[in-house]
């Protein structure tokens, strides 16, 4: 346990370093973008003095490191500046949009994890049979199709033709949302006992979550299969078989754990990246999420929003990395947690 704590502490320390590095990287990219964001935000006809005023407020006329200093100072107090697009504080924007994306990612993650691993395991166990080939082809199709194409197809089939699932938004208009405890509607609904809201929110989550999950789950199925096939050929499996250990035990106790290592690595990172890459799906379902907000920010050169969104997404990635490393360390004790040096 002590080792684990040491590991986490060490990684957290490094994470701070990474976050700072990331903030500098994004800050530079955002500020280096050509154009006059203040002018863009205020419109073509705003008088020059109004534009200048905004530039002053945003310190846009100062050298880069001075701008960074002001930004960092504000950031440490939770103030990420004002968004040029929504005209309110970026921190408020993130508080409003993040839970929506998180909820979407959570449900997509559930689909991804369960369906992906199950498919991959089946495929790998029955390697080179028709079951395996069928699953492989299905997962290729899943990998190759962009999530927005799935989104469009699902909307057309379930919303337009069959009309059994809603098209846009998180809740049906007219339904009173539950009091906002976490911002994640399904949790809030469960906590406050509003089951009608819970089901309504689930209905709205189904299509976007599955659209987002299709690509990653196919990838995981493939990786699990590939890894399982690799490991099945390893010596220790053969020796276990020759010892007479039943196939089932071999599968679940000895094979699955190490085979899942690449899958879990990818799962963690896929989950974190869903948050970032969901913008097209969020666009189609009019989902008020962080990714769509970030995309708009990028297209409209909303500097403060871009920096803040990338940092939030970065933070999540880092956390996902740490969790993945911990899990991998548990699954393959030989790797350990990096705190022991190899005997050289």
């Amino acid at each position, binding site marked *: 346990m002590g080792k684990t704590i040491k590991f986490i502490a060490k990684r957290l320390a490094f994470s701070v370093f990474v976050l700072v590095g990331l903030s500098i990287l994004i800050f530079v990219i955002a500020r280096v973008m*050509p*154009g*006059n964001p203040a*002018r*863009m935000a*205020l*419109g*073509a*006809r*705003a*008088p020059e*003095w*109004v534009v200048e*005023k905004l530039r002053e*407020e945003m310190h846009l006329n100062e050298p880069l490191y001075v701008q960074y200093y002001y930004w960092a100072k504000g950031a440490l107090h939770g103030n990420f500046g004002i968004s040029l*697009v*929504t*005209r*309110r504080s970026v921190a408020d*924007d993130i508080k*409003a*949009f993040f839970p929506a994306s998180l909820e979407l990612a959570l449900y997509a993650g559930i689909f991804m994890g369960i369906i992906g691993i199950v498919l991959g395991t089946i495929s790998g166990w029955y390697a080179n049979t028709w079951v395996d080939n069928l699953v492989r082809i299905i997962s290729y199709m899943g990998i190759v199709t962009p999530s927005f194409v799935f989104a*469009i197809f699902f*909307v*057309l089939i379930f*919303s*337009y033709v069959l*009309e*059994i699932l*809603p*098209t*846009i*938004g998180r809740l*049906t*208009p*007219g*339904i009173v949302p539950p009091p906002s405890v976490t911002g994640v509607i399904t949790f809030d609904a469960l906590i406050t006992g509003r*089951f*009608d809201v819970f*089901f*309504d929110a*689930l*209905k709205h989550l*189904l299509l976007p979550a599955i659209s987002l999950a299709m690509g990653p789950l196919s990838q995981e199925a493939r990786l699990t299969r590939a890894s399982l096939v690799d490991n099945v050929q390893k010596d220790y499996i053969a020796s276990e078989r020759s010892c007479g250990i039943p196939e089932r035990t071999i599968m679940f106790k000895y094979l699955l754990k190490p085979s899942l290592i690449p899958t879990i690595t990818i799962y963690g990172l896929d989950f974190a990246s869903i948050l970032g890459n969901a913008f097209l799906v969020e*666009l*189609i*379902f*009019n989902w*008020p999420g962080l990714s*769509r*907000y970030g995309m*708009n920010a990028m*297209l*409209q*050169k909303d500097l403060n929003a871009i920096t803040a969104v990338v940092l939030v997404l970065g933070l999540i990635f880092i956390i996902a990395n740490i969790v993945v490393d911990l899990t991998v360390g548990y699954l393959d004790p030989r790797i350990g947690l990096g705190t022991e040096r190899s005997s050289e």
Partner: protein
Amino acid sequence: MSKSVKILLITLCLIGILSFGAASAAERPFRTNWSWPTYIDPAVGSDFSSSTALVNLYDTLFYPDIKGDPQPHVAESWEVSADGLVWTIHLRQGIKFHDGTELTAEDVKFSMDRLITIGEGYAYLFKVIESTEVLDKYTVVFNLNHPFGPFEAVMYRFYILNKDLVMANIERPGPYGDMGDYGKQYLLTHDAGSGPYMVKEFPLEEYLLMTINTNYWIPIDPNAPDEYKMIGTCEPVTIRTLMSRRELEVADRWQPVEALDALEKINGVKIGEFDSGLSYYYMVNTKKPPTDDIHFRKAMAWALDYKTVLDKIFPGSIQSRGPVNQSIPGADPTIFQYQRDLDKAMAELKQSKYYDQLDKYPVVVAFPSVPADNEKMALLFMSNMADIGIKVETLKVPWASIIEIMASEETSPHVAGVSVAPHYPEAGSLLESRYKSDSVATWEQNEWLLDSKFDAMIEEALKAVNREERFNKYSQIQQYIMDLCPTLFIFDMMAKHPYQAGYIDWPAARGEVIPVMGYNLAARFIKVYPDKRAELLK
């Protein structure tokens, strides 16, 4: 857990999920969609969605009729002094804001001062106002710094705020001295108006929900919507699904041609077409070789295939007649129109100094990636120019990048394909914002005309308080522009809004079109019939 229990649970879950149907609180909901963002602060908002919201939430002094002429609204009567510098407005008594307090001259003065101080949104239209005075409780005086003919037209963009409410919600400290933030934070998501609708919910980037003001000072038709929701998405597939499920009443005007065809096939859906004053221009940079040569520009004007544009790319639109959209008061109906004539094009091209080196001077045409049909226009242009030997390169970029590259002379492209509407319903508005020297570096001008004679002409025209005199001057200016050939005038863009003809009555779709942006979606004039909607849903 036994198998049967599991099956039971799953079935229950499915029933639960599928059975909670749509619950709509409003009886007569009216929903439109538009692209984001929308600013409901009258001193900040100026684009289409903001204007639409503002028209419904606030009141103005004058209200435009279908000719664009001012009718009394908050202003009961008004006069202008002989020298044109003083406008005296007499307000109607008894108009109440949404919080119940009365609208007085104090509120009018406060609103104008606030607009000019903040300087964003439509403030630039009111540069002419020197000061605002309160004469008595119901009389306001505007002192101008020079006579200004289109004064009344400009006032369609001046919305009256509830002074006490805003003052009570000012955040300090702020960038406006003792006015703090001037209420900008509050007005981001609340309204301080007296208009026929009030803000009910406004989750930014998702939708704006307005509910009817039952105490409005003008009686509203009982069939008008009791709720008006503006939804923030433009995705064709989404819009199509919403329309077919009768969850959207009027869609935006930017749907691609193929989507319109599909939408029309839905029972009860028609495409409402009207000219809203928007025109599509290929703005030609007059300072960059090779387009700095007038013969080169004229050659391009003769080579473009206008007919194919109108037949295939933007069907229903009409060819432009000069710089001003033909539905705008002041447009000259005698202006010449180019037609495709390759012989005349070659003749002009031969007179240009770049004739022998066409390969060395490619023409870059930039256009925004939305709406999608812009790309067809650009490729047609490319093909037409190739017919006379001119090389064209296309640059398809997001809107934000268009604004950026047009902001300086070096980066601005040879041709920019942009659509522009007048800010108020007069030809002068368009001429000024398109060609006057102070609008270079904005997205409304790519010509970089910088012509002092033109500047003088338009300033003179705007000063003329007499309408006939003013409009004559507009005609002369339009002719002057045609002679310079700084732009390819392509088409007056018909607004094509898919709408639920089966259960709503929309005046604009019937031809009662107000030539001011946003006013055609003033919900109090729209009628919604929920029983007909229920019929269609069966």
